[in-house]
């Protein structure tokens, strides 16, 4: 988990929305975050989780593939992608 200079996880609000099943708000947060940090694999990973939960499977696959193109050893993205492709 990456933290900013003040020791906080900048993705925390988005994660909070996900954990509280507020997927539209979470999606908005992570998409906005991409504008400031477009190469952050964690943002794509969380978007993948949101789409997977909402059964938007092809979008979820796109997101997990994006994570792995940036960080090939991302264990969780690999796990989710394998499961979705296996479907």
């Amino acid at each position: 988990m990456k933290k900013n200079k003040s020791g906080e996880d900048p993705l925390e609000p988005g994660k909070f929305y996900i954990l509280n099943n507020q997927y539209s708000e979470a999606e908005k947060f992570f998409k906005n975050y991409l504008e400031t940090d477009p190469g952050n694999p964690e943002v794509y990973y969380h978007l993948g989780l949101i789409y997977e939960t909402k059964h938007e499977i092809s979008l979820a696959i796109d997101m997990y593939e994006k994570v792995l193109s940036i960080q090939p050893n991302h264990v969780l993205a690999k796990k989710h992608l394998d499961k979705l492709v296996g479907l």
Partner: protein
Amino acid sequence: MELKKPKHFAVIGLGVFGANVVKFLHELEVEILGIDKNERKVDEVKQYLKLPVVADATDQKQLQDAGFNKDNIDVAIVAIGESVETSIYVTLLLKEIGIKQIIARAMNNQHAKILAKIGVDKIVYPESNAAEHLARSIVSPHILEMIELSSEYSIAEIVAAKEFYKKTLKDIAIGSRYKVIVIGIKRKTPILVEETGDTDLKEEILLIPGSEEKIIDGDVFIVAGRNEDIEKMRNAK
């Protein structure tokens, strides 16, 4: 009487289909012997195999040397997909060796007929099943799976429509509205992994959910009912 669960499986042919069978069997915690004459294919799934074997399954001696006998293998799955002749020949060898249960992949109707005549216990049609799945996912994207119980009745997995979000099963009154029975709800719940701080999803099934259960975004109903009623329910927005 309790049925004895088969524990020792063999998968012959480790192409895409065979490799996936191996992975799913591995999740069921059974012992798998995997055989293919292509070393690279064996290497790709060897972490899931109790016994990875590079050998020619059309050679009876090589099969027996690899441990194929009626005492070692409960179920053999012939997953060969490149040649109908090879698939039939290997299946015959397995019958001759005395393997108790043989499941074979059929590539077309003729192939399936021959496999049935040889006495294969179960024939699977992965291409046909995948085609059916694809067709259904296009025509009925909200129906994830459907198991026919008879020509009239099925069990289906249906993604909950938006109009149901945040409502209880009692509010939705599925039983009287659609004449189907909700036997379960599949839900992917976001969780925080304490050790790493990562966000992940936990999949759970609520069997026979109570009437006060609230539907959330992404829930999938497992319903049983008449096909026409299931179809009506999938049209809910």
